[in-house]
């Protein structure tokens, strides 16, 4: 029954993809599903709300709805926004130059602080530090015993002190580190509720006493909606630097991670998964996104996003062509497409009055082959900027393609004619790219070679058609 978020999103997108065109209602439907899926993953209600609003707004922009690939664009926007929420960069634990460095752990009861403290010590030891663990939980029965045992198991010194004053124990702990040449102090504190004023004040008192270089908050990955109130309060009162997400070895989606970033701006630094000391890993936002979305299907979502990029690239190309700025590469593509569509003859006969053009001009399909060979013998630069093709370049190309220089000259002449015609034609059709950016542009569906079923010709006048025919005549000759 528990369908993963990525499965749900995929369903929504598949449904969207089934339609050619998106309406506002379609987008609303997709957003409803995305909202439910995120809530199911325990992303906070308010975070979901602003996420959905933001995403929806972007999806409803004219150039998404009217683009050639609206669905892919929606997918890409969703992924974009999710990644932004999680934070882009990995955030590592950076120790300051102060010796000893002091790291303080805080969090709710039962979130996994003591276990995380031992894991952190273990990790630091692997990195050639000599940590000291300090047991400042004087409330939970046997909490100090627990830390002492864990420290013993990994071979790390533990300071537990005497009495019931955690501030005093913390201060003594730092001194103990100095006396025993430890370079990092990890202070394990008691679990406390964010609404317990006395206990929150105690955390602040410990902080003021030992001036930690880092305060890390330990958050249970299974926490639900309340995570926002909790981290907000801790951020405000204790002001931590980063988060350790604990119990990540379960199957909770950990949507709380999204909420923490969004609400406090604090990075997730580590994930803790398991009871063994070596299970503290650095946090990777992309992996977390995968987890929130549900593992496997992520690949297909990413593929969709890549496809969107390709589509966008094509759209940019089409735009360039529509401005009449074609290159020899375009020329080649156009010719190949012509062939894919059944050759010049079929293309022309499909046009209104095409039969007449066919009768008057001779259509030589073989021309296409030799043209391709010649263009393939050019350098990339030559194909992009045909104007640089001087005599010596032409001679080289002719030799490479095994044709005469005249044939190369003919091809260039033909290309120049086509370029001129395209330019004229575009001006005639009133297609003028603004040339600025991809967004905010109003693009008439005028993507030349792939023009779908010539639907774009509806609004053409008779003289347009006449002009188009002339151009085809030119090419066919």
């Amino acid at each position, binding site marked *: 029954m528990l369908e993963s978020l990525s499965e749900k999103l995929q369903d929504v997108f598949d449904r969207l993809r089934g339609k050619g065109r998106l309406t506002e209602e379609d987008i609303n439907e997709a957003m409803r599903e995305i909202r439910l899926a995120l809530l199911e993953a325990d992303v906070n209600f308010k975070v979901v709300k602003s996420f959905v609003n933001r995403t929806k707004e972007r999806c409803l922009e004219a150039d998404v709805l009217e683009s050639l690939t609206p669905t892919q664009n929606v997918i890409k926007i969703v992924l974009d926004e999710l990644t932004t929420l999680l934070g882009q960069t990995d955030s590592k634990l950076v120790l300051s130059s102060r010796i000893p460095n002091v790291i303080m752990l805080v969090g709710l009861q039962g979130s996994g602080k003591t276990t995380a403290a031992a894991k952190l010590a273990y990790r630091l030891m692997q990195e050639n530090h000599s940590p000291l663990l300090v047991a400042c939980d004087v409330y939970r029965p*046997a909490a100090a015993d627990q830390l002492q045992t864990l420290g013993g198991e990994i071979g790390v010194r533990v300071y537990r002190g005497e009495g019931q004053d955690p501030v005093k124990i913390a201060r003594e702990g730092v001194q103990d580190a100095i006396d025993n040449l430890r370079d990092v102090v990890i202070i394990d504190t008691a679990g406390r509720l964010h609404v317990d004023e006395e206990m929150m004040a105690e955390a602040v008192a410990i902080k003021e006493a030992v001036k930690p270089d880092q305060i890390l908050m330990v958050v249970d990955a299974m926490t639900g*909606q309340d995570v926002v109130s909790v981290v907000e309060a801790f951020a405000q009162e204790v002001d931590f630097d980063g988060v350790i997400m604990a119990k990540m070895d379960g199957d909770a989606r950990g949507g709380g991670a999204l909420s923490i970033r969004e609400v406090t701006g604090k990075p997730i630094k580590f994930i803790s998964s398991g009871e063994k000391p070596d299970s503290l890993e650095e946090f990777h936002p992309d992996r977390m996104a995968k987890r929130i979305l549900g593992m496997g299907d992520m690949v297909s979502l990413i593929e969709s996003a890549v496809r969107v990029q390709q589509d966008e690239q094509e759209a940019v190309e089409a735009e360039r062509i529509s401005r009449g700025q074609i290159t020899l590469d375009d020329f080649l593509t156009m010719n190949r497409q012509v062939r894919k569509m059944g050759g010049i003859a079929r293309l022309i006969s499909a046009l209104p009055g095409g039969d007449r053009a066919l009768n008057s001009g001779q259509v030589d399909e073989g021309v296409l082959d030799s043209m391709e060979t010649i263009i393939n013998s050019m350098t990339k630069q030559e194909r992009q900027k045909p104007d640089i093709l001087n005599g010596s370049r032409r001679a080289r190309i002719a030799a490479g393609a095994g044709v005469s220089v005249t044939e190369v000259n003919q091809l260039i002449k033909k290309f120049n004619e086509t370029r001129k015609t395209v330019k004229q034609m575009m001006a005639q059709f009133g297609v003028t790219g603004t040339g600025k950016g991809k967004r905010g542009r109003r693009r008439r569906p005028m993507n030349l070679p792939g023009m779908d079923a010539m639907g774009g010709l509806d609004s053409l006048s008779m003289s347009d058609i006449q002009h188009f025919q002339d151009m085809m005549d030119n090419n066919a000759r």
Partner: protein
Amino acid sequence: MSSWFERMSEGLSRSRQRFVESMNVLLDRGPYLDQSFWDGLEETLILGDIGAETALEIVDHLQDQAARKALPDAYAVLSLLADQIAERFTPGGEEILEGEEGSVVLFVGINGTGKTTTVGKIAKEATDGGRHVLLGSADTFRAAAIEQLEVWADRANVEIVTRKRGSDPASVCYETIERGEAVGADLILIDTAGRLHTSADLMRELEKVVSVVRKRSKLPVYTVLVIDATTGQNGLAQAKEFHKALNLDGLILTKLDGTAKGGIALAVSSELELPIIKIGVGEAIEDLDDFDAHDFSEALIGDFSEQV
């Protein structure tokens, strides 16, 4: 320039609004039921971890009823809502701690939910209520878990059976039951190690422990899942796995003294048909309460009721 028709209907709706408002003042009624009321209600339920689907279902149903029963205002809807939420909880479970023949109760759950603390609290409450309580520490895994329960046994002034860390939890249970028979205990509470429901090995181990206890005990045996109120939607997956492995008899919801509402308990109780037998409201030995479905439901929508 609005048309004559538009102007008329605008005037009508304005006077209708005024009429409703004055009626409310007269009858001391709450605010009118508009879309923002329903949205706010949905938000409150979701923020209480009740689950988005359940929240939508409840709000839809209620909206329907408000129309059909012509509920006058928000207050009427809210009291109906509290009733409906309360009804969804599975009642019962008294026999677990208060059965006449006595019982053996195992406390299970994921790490850090409050099992050990709850065992301590119940030990005290039951002793005060006249039971002969015996504790058994079957968490032989976590560092200092035994010492922790020993402190609670001390606080509640009850006897405890332990073995050293690392020993077989099933044999601790075996010994505890034997001891219980020898001293005539009528409530044996067994603390188990926290474990994630996704760890197949640890779940199998627990299954074995419970089946040993069921075979050995002459008293009825019950298993109780301890859930932390801050748990989100994953709580249902947890409960299902524990239920599948152990065939649970009841639930205990802890940490209700925070701001988390514990809405996931509703899904667990109604879907798995398990009663909530106690709630934890703090870290002290007396911070244990009986569960009252109505109070719980009212607390779930409490903040919202205050705003309305």
